[in-house]
């Protein structure tokens, strides 16, 4: 199975570096949030001191002192190191690493659920190992980090620390570093065990096809070609005499693939632009593809011994500089398992190639998506890719650690645990929340959707404009604004999931990893700074 489902119209974006304007957007966002934070702090101080002038003076003073402390943070590196070592030691001495043995238990039973097909095997195993690591390490880290600072405050051990020349920011940063040290260690051990386990469990046929990390070149939208309604897309369909965004709709609900009809002039066009020098020293370049076969006749056209009756495809490679067809090949399409076409490297000499696919078999359809056909530029090791996958888990843990440390500056231990898990869970529903507040998800706000639920009202018609419903809609508007704020503050954790790459045998793009790292760093820096200001301005004794 060569395909990885990438539900995007432009898969090559996964491999593109972040836009240069990104840091400026980040700075702008942080500045706006800082203004809100300052206003909030001012309001709280005002309520406490009952004097606007004094509140302003105190808040500005706290802000400046805080900024100085942030800027001079590196000067305290030896103290940060001591605090990090303390957290590390605490985790070790409290024998938290024993959880690691819990991690081993499910491995004994995983074999029971192993799928029969060799294609499914590695996918299952990778998902299993990744899941075992995430589901043990993430709750462990949330529990550990959430309880740490509140325990110090509750048991007053914090007294002997803050009465030393330690800045409060150093306490937070030291803690984060210490915990990340221990989590990194545990992650590496778990990853190592997981990898040995994967090697041992997967059989030879699986290792041959899946124990790899493919580096694909995906189609990109060309500058000079558009569809009839002027869309620039990496994959376009030729139908009824013009290029279109979609092919024939065969009635499948999953709109990922679009179909072309056999034995007609319909065709699918991928546009490739790439640096041709990477293929200079190669004889041929594998082009891997996975098409969906949609039959309108009975029987399995791809069954063994049915070569004549199979679904056939014609693939043509056109050099877009000269307009000549540089290579073509007719082949029988394998459903699901995919095909490989070896194309002479010289066909790609111009670095600007159009690949045209046509279905040759009457009454059958071929379905395809932008990511279904790619040039295989390189293959890297599975182990390296697995490690990259662990980096993503590590980033997720870093994010949750920072959220938990910040929350624990003003919440009690158990509340911090609940809060952090809430962030974690909502993080996976980020798209859904954005969908609700932007109105893309039907059903309205919490009250409206409850009314619809109880009155068994459908989601499409407007609510009966009676008195109660109007009040409910008014309240919903308010609640949706709150949700909007929340939706944009909660991190989108679906971004931090790269297990699918490893499981499908695709190299995790460095660009994706970089973007994930930037996303997490960009998220945790303001979060920790917020926590620092709270921690600095709270009383640690009662």
């Amino acid at each position, binding site marked *: 199975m060569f395909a990885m489902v990438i539900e995007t119209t432009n898969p090559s974006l996964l491999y593109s570096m972040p836009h240069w304007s990104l840091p400026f957007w980040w700075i702008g966002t942080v500045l706006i949030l800082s203004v809100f934070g300052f206003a909030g702090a001012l309001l709280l101080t005002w309520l406490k001191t009952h004097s606007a002038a004094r509140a302003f003076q105190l808040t500005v003073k706290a802000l400046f002192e805080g900024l100085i402390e942030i800027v001079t943070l590196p000067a305290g590196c*030896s103290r940060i*190191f001591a605090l990090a070592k303390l957290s590390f030691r605490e985790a070790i001495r409290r024998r938290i690493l024993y959880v690691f043995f819990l991690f081993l238990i499910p491995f004994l039973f995983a074999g029971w659920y192993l799928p029969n097909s060799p294609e499914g095997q590695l996918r299952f195993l990778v998902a299993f190992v990744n899941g075992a690591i995430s589901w043990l390490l993430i709750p462990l880290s949330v529990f550990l980090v959430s309880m740490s600072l509140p325990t110090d405050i509750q*048991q007053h*051990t914090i007294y*002997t620390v*803050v*009465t*030393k*020349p330690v800045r409060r920011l150093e306490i937070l940063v030291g803690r984060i570093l210490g915990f990340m040290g221990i989590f990194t260690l545990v992650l590496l051990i778990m990853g190592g065990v997981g990898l040995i386990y994967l090697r041992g469990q997967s059989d030879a046929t699986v290792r041959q096809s899946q124990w790899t990390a493919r580096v694909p070149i995906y189609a990109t939208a060309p500058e000079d070609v558009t569809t009839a309604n002027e869309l620039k897309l990496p994959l376009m369909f030729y139908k009824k005499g013009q290029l279109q965004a979609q092919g024939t709709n065969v009635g499948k609900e999953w709109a990922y693939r679009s179909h072309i009809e056999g034995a007609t002039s319909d065709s699918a066009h991928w546009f490739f632009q790439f640096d041709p020098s990477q293929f200079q020293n190669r004889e041929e370049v594998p082009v891997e593809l996975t098409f969906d076969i949609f039959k309108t006749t009975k029987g399995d056209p791809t069954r063994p011994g049915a070569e004549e009756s199979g679904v056939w495809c014609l693939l043509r490679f056109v050099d877009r500089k000269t307009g000549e067809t540089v290579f073509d090949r007719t082949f029988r399409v394998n459903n699901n398992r995919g095909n490989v076409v070896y194309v002479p490297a010289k066909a790609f000499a111009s670095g600007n190639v159009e690949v045209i696919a046509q279905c040759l078999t009457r009454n059958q359809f071929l379905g395809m998506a932008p990511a279904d056909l790619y040039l295989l530029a390189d293959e890297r090791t599975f182990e390296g890719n697995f490690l990259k996958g662990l980096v993503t888990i590590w980033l997720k843990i870093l994010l949750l650690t920072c959220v938990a440390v910040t929350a624990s500056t003003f919440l009690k231990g158990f509340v911090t645990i609940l809060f952090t898990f809430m962030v974690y869970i909502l993080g996976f529903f980020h798209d859904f929340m954005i969908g609700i507040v932007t109105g893309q998800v039907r059903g309205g706000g919490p009250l409206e959707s409850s009314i619809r639920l109880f009155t068994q009202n459908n989601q499409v018609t407007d609510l009966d404009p009676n008195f109660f419903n109007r009040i409910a809609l008014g309240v919903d508007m308010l609640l949706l604004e709150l949700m909007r704020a929340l939706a944009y503050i909660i991190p989108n954790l679906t971004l931090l999931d790269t297990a699918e790459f490893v499981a499908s045998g695709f190299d995790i793009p460095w660009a994706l990893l970089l973007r994930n790292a930037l996303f997490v760093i960009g998220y945790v820096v303001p979060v920790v700074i917020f926590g620092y200001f709270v921690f600095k301005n709270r*009383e640690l004794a009662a």
Partner: protein
Amino acid sequence: MTTDAVIETRNLTKVYRDFWGRKKVDALKSLNLTVQRGEIFGLLGPNGSGKTTSIKLLLGLLFPSNGEALVLGKPASDVAKNERIGYLPEESYLYRFLNAEETLDFYGRLFDISGKERRKRIDSLIQQVGLNRARKRVLKEYSKGMTRRIGVAQALINDPELILLDEPTSGLDPLGTREMKDLIRSLRDEGKTVVLCSHLLADVQDVCDRIAILHQGELKELGRVSDLLSIQDMTEIKVGGLSDEAKEEIRQVVARHNGNLVSMGHPSTTLEDLFLKIIRESEAHPGRRYLPEREGEQPTEPPVSSN
């Protein structure tokens, strides 16, 4: 106020409030105090009188509701002052999973003390507090007295100028108490300033140069221990080398006044008596500064107005 003041509080006030900002308790009311360099200063008071609150305010663990506290010339909220301060909390709040060496090493690192110097100080402090045999044992195995000792050692790791001790002798046996008192005196002899708070009056009486007595968050008495404990309306005469005639004469004089003469001078009360007297007086007249029934004596500080 002289420039040699190590601690200076001006109208230092702490009000504890609940979540809604309603007043729960006035923990400390307008405290004005000055502690001079090189003295042993004792803060006395019954439980809940504001001793520990005062110490926490001085350390920046609490923020004042009003007024201010200067420690070593810096505001109490300034972290930099901690470089020259040693603090022994009420109970030794230390990390129980560390051993003695690791504990001192951890706190030493927080002061940015170089590795060589750190090892030297750790060694000498462990010797000084007598934990040499237990230096590799984790703190959770320590007895209360041992925990107290390691607590003292961590308070001294930075060779501080000002040492704040919260109940230094609690949990110590008589021998340990004696050692602690000797240690406090030797710290003063090294030129350090010691502020301690305690309700163990005998200890305070032994070591303190000056004391302040707090009750219900108010300062009730402040002065030198020797002055506070002398009884002005009583006379004690102790005489040697008198002839029998002279003795007879004195005896007659005393007998005429129905006295029984042993020695001559101002006898001392115990601090316990003074303390109880002040507390009873304070409870009878809340909010009033204790005024000693002495003639020609003025309190060293102006009385604090009640609010």
